[in-house]
């Protein structure tokens, strides 16, 4: 598709969240021998990760983030017109996790709440949907929640994923802004279902409801095919977005990559002609948290924010689906960034 744009929205605040439990790959990993762990840590760049226990779902992580955002902005729950929950690890098949969180936040019955089933590309899609909704009448404030708990669908004996994944949630508060005040946000959105089996939980859905093989309840990843996909798609995604927007690379303050794997990100940076200081990293501290790694990197990636000037960010999101998307947007200097931890034993749904 062509690159599209919106001109109606402003980011007011982003809060990211992680479980408080911290796992140190070099100290705590016992399923693999030390040399193997060191090799994976060196290549993937994941030193520590925050992991959910059985009591923490993505709704709990996003709820904590959303509460923080509402409190920070002093937004009353009844002023929220839309709640978009982006996740691939929902609490239930039904109802949607958005409705679970809607109740927990005490939002009004005038609020549109729905799930979007996307993973690593999900943040750009969620922000695009919010921006589109805000271009029409009736919507003023939208929360984009993006959370995933990939450690809960990773088999601990699977070296390809066991040492890589962390869990995270996020809440992004987006508000309507008049066309005279809002800057243009550019989006490029893509899919290639031919790679749908390259990153898949094959069992548990209605295609194979109760598989005898219990490993089918866990994620299966063809790492080589996924890497191949990023090599082919991400540089074009970056270049096409900038070309459509008429923006030079030099005008971008930060390129926020989905934190997939340090080796892959370094290679992509080199291939795209970017210097690593332009690419904030959180993978060392948090691992690959799926799509929420993007808002997590905005809040925790040590972005230098000059007073009185917003930042131009190019978000590059890619993965399961296969699905990939960019968002070129501004982060106003007044936007509030925050980060919270969620203690184990937090089961907000039954609270």
């Amino acid at each position, binding site marked *: 598709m062509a690159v599209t744009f919106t001109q109606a929205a402003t980011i007011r605040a982003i809060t990211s969240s992680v479980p408080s439990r911290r796992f140190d790959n070099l100290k705590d990993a016992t399923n693999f021998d030390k040399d193997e762990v060191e*090799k*994976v840590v060196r*290549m993937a760049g994941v030193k520590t990760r925050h992991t959910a226990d059985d009591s923490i779902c993505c709704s709990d992580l996003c709820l904590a983030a959303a509460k923080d955002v509402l409190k920070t902005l002093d937004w009353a729950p009844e002023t929220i017109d839309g709640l978009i929950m982006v996740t691939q690890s929902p609490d239930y098949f039904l109802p949607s996790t958005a409705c679970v969180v809607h109740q927990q936040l005490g939002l009004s019955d005038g609020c549109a709440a729905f799930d979007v089933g996307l993973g690593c590309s999900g943040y750009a899609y969620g922000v695009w949907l919010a921006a589109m909704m805000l271009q029409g009448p009736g919507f003023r404030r939208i929360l984009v929640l993006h959370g995933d708990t990939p450690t809960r669908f990773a088999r601990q004996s699977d*070296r*390809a994923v066991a040492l890589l994944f962390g869990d995270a949630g996020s809440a992004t508060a987006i508000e309507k802004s008049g066309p005279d005040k809002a800057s243009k946000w550019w989006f490029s959105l893509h899919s290639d279902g031919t790679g749908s089996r390259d990153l898949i939980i094959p069992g548990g859905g209605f295609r194979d409801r109760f598989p005898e093989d219990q490993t089918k309840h866990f994620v299966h990843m063809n*790492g*080589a*095919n996924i*890497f*191949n996909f990023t*090599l*082919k798609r991400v540089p074009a995604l970056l270049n096409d977005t900038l070309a459509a927007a008429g923006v030079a690379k030099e005008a971008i303050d930060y390129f926020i990559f989905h934190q997939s794997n340090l*080796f*892959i990100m370094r*290679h992509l940076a*080199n*291939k795209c002609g970017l210097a690593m200081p332009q690419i904030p990293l959180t993978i060392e501290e948090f691992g690959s948290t799926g799509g929420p790694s993007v808002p997590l990197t905005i809040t925790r990636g040590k972005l230098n924010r000059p007073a009185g000037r917003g930042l131009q960010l190019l978000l590059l999101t890619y993965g399961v689906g296969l699905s990939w998307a960019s968002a070129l947007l501004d982060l106003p200097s007044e936007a509030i960034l925050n980060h919270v931890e969620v203690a184990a034993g937090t089961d907000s749904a039954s609270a």
Partner: protein
Amino acid sequence: MNGMAMACQPCMNTAEALRWIAGLFEQDPEQVKAETLREEIPAWDSLGVLTLMAALDKKFGVLLGNGEISAMKSVNDVLEVLRKNNKING
């Protein structure tokens, strides 16, 4: 391609390519022959596949098809990829 043959650039001969592959997997160049199998090279594991893909892209601008990745079972298969992409001239 406008009917023109793709230039061999960068270009190696087979011996140079074998040394390049050995270096990639931190192997003694003497131990790496065309007939060497993937399982004989410890570093050519699942992470090694990513290393190889990145190196082919960075050095030669060669991107593989998914089928080509899974089909690479020996050093000769890597040489064939380079030949097919006109990166080996002898």
